């Protein structure tokens, strides 16, 4: 999939557990786990908004477009 979810990295930076995030955003742990593992097919704006609010980040910090050329690594490193 060309859109990668980097929720685990953001969570690690914030030293927050997935359970805590699930309680804060009101999304079940199972659904957040689906999102984190990249199995989700779509994300609602309302979920994205709640995630950005609680993690104090931008959508681009959670979602990364992977075009397969290696540019993603550079973006992620930045």
């Amino acid at each position: 999939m060309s859109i990668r979810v980097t929720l685990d990295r953001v969570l690690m930076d914030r030293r927050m557990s997935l359970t805590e995030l699930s309680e804060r955003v009101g999304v079940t742990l199972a659904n957040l786990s689906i999102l984190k593992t990249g199995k989700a097919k779509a994300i609602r704006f309302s979920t994205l908004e709640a995630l950005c609010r609680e993690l104090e980040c931008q959508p681009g910090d959670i979602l990364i477009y992977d075009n397969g050329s290696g540019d993603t690594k550079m973006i992620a490193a930045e």
Partner: protein
Amino acid sequence: MSVLVTIVMWFAAITGVIFISYTAYGLFAYFSGIPLDSLNIEVAEDNNGVAKLISGLLGGIVAIPGIIYVCVQLRRILSTLAKGDPFVPENAGRLTRIAMAILVMQVLKYVVVVCLGMIFSDAEVTLRLDLITWASVAALFILAQVFREGTRLRDEEKMTI
């Protein structure tokens, strides 16, 4: 509903076996020269009677398993409904198989009629185009496609966070 389908299925199976046996015996007796009065079968002395018996026998051989097959598929669809989740991709396949079964029965019916018409040239065999059945087949194919798309959309919705 499932009970009704089961009743229809067993009714088709039992009456089918009786009908096929009856017609087969009638045909056998006709060719063997056995009098058919005891069986209450009236067969005309010309080819028309034989053609009717053969078409009845072949029709039974094709239609009875076909009806049972359709009933089995319907029961499986109904069992998913009873479990509370009928919107599964398997049901789209089942609807397609029902449509295919009806289509095959119709085509075989035409093949039998045409073949009998060619073998017994003096027999009264008429080829009727059953528009309602063909419309049902088309409706079932469309419904199966709609069902398939519906289950796909539901799966997508399920994986939307």
